[in-house]
């Protein structure tokens, strides 16, 4: 097997790029989620009046934690899965193109 020229999948640089891209995506999604999850107790703590506002009988905070939080998580995971699958396909493409150009030479 001819070692491909660029990108070399066994090189340090390729691994770095791979992990950095994937980790960046994961961290972006995790941050959205954590800010919401960890922000809720803070809002309960510092803005109890706001969080006790009644909406259809629910208090605002009950509505968010008991019902609305689940769809939020679905949206985050949906976005993550689409992007991460697209990312993997792009990586495979890049390597394939690299292989092709190596063969031409």
């Amino acid at each position, binding site marked *: 097997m001819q070692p491909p020229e660029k990108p070399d999948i066994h090189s340090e640089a390729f691994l770095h790029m*791979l992990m950095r891209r994937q980790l960046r995506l994961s961290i972006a999604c995790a941050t959205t989620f954590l800010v919401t999850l960890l922000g809720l107790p803070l809002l309960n703590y510092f803005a109890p009046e706001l969080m006790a506002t009644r909406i259809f009988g629910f208090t605002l905070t009950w509505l968010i934690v*008991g019902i609305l939080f689940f769809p939020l998580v679905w949206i985050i995971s949906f976005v993550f899965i689409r992007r991460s699958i697209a990312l993997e396909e792009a990586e495979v493409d890049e390597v394939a193109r690299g292989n092709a150009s190596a063969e031409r030479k």
Partner: protein
Amino acid sequence: MPLLANVDPWIFTFSAITVIVTVAMGFWSAKKSKTASDFFVAGRSVGVGMNASAISGEYLSAASFMGVAGMVMSSGYDALWYPVCYACGYLFLLLFIAGPLRRFGAYTIPDFAEGRFDSPVFRKIAVVFVLFIGFFYTMPQMKGAGVTLAYIFKDIEWIGGAKGLPYWVGVVLVGAVITLNVALGGMKGITLVQAFQYWIKMFAISVPVFVLMSVHSHYGNHLQANLVKPSAGMTSQGDASTSLETAAALNRKVLPEKAPKDETWINPFGPLTTKAAKAAGLSAEESKPYSLLYTYSLIIALVCGTAGLPHILVRFYTNPDGVAAKRTTMWVMILIGVFYVFPPVFGVMGRNLMPELYNGLAGVKGTDGVVLNLPLILTEKYGTLGAVLSGITCAGAFAAFMSTFSGLLVSMTGALAHDIYGRILRPKSTPEDRMRMFKFCAVICGVGAILLGFLVETFEINKLVGWAFAIAATSYFPLLFLATWWRNITMKGAATGMLAGGSLSLVAIASTMLADQAKWAEGLKIWYTTHPLARTLAEQPAIWALPLAIVLMIVVSRLTRSEVPADIRMKMLVLHAPEKLGLKQEYIQEHQAGH
């Protein structure tokens, strides 16, 4: 039939159907499980829909089906963190762990541990943790089964005149049924059963809620009946009168003395999280910071614990590839997210319509039984409808114990048969030998679980589950997270962090239980009463034990940096490169050549 006198025929029928169908499916799928791979990872060929249903079925345990509703009823708002974090822990699993773990292509977590660090010793440590967390999680399932069965048949009359059913019958029944299923069909066998049990549970929790809401008004109205007073002089007069009118329209029953007051129940920082501060005699305002701390620590334990439960992780190996593993997680989150909307509704309605449960003793006779009992209020108006719905929720409870226990049993059996027998004791054994060993170990673990089940009759279900989560969050989660994303971690670093995090949080939780229950720990109890901060941190250790585990892993890895595996770049590539690049195959060939 004198034997079945005084037993509700509907409850009996539905529960019996669930058990019989489970056994039948076990036999049916046993015919299809032939190879060792079928037994350990279901041939790695489970489709996304089926696997997502099976994972969800396994995950929704007795604690989710009955415990969450009971806790919402007894503690109010604070208990909502349980369903939310149970569901959201999966997001963490998806974001950081699911894909890489599947790509690595091991059979069990100890396989991953050994493969990642090239260390047979670490496999042994990992096996011990799998068994330990597994048995901790098993005990509450067993207890739930025993208590529920005894409750369903509480009025049964035997020929000799004796009444009721002893606790051990449920433990033995559920233990035996599932052990049989696992021994017959292994992972492949239980996948179908668990998928089926998810849909039973979903049906059993949602249908009664819709019927109850159509008769007794909707979720929001039942919450409206609770007065809100976040701070003095805050509530507008109009708001309070709306609550009173709603309460009157719902025919809300008078709450007993034992029930928490409306404003502490519906608002955050209620009885669940302020226990330690209240015991120290602090005022409501003074105890709020402790309560906030408790809430955060609980959130960390539940979210990270979910991502570190070995019996959940082992299921990811049944996916055909990493992309399927990600898609499966997405569906699991939808399936369990929808489910978790319903149990709190039981708690909220139970508070208004069946407050007498507050006076009941602990367990199913009290608020934990709200899911089983609440449908019976329909009996007054609609006769048998109440009994039919109650029968359905009982069947759901059975599905809950059985499916969670099946998953635990497979992961513990896998640890014994694959890791201890197949890799440590007799590495040269054939796949057929290992399959026979799987069946044998399934029986050993099943009997062990039944015996442990006898011991825990007096323990609280939620406490035991909490232990398992806290230990998983402070041992397996940091291990998996760092091992997949940080190349410089060494075996010694990982082991130190894992052992220290897991054992210190265990000691902390155990100390609060001893302080509450043991006579000789009286001194500790007094000390905890005067130190609410220490008590809060000991009851919910994740907030300090998880960072401690991570720091230890990093520091010790740095000190032993010469021991980073030589082929670490290849390992990291296998974990992170898309499968289509075919690196996994290369890695295996290289390894075989090396041996």
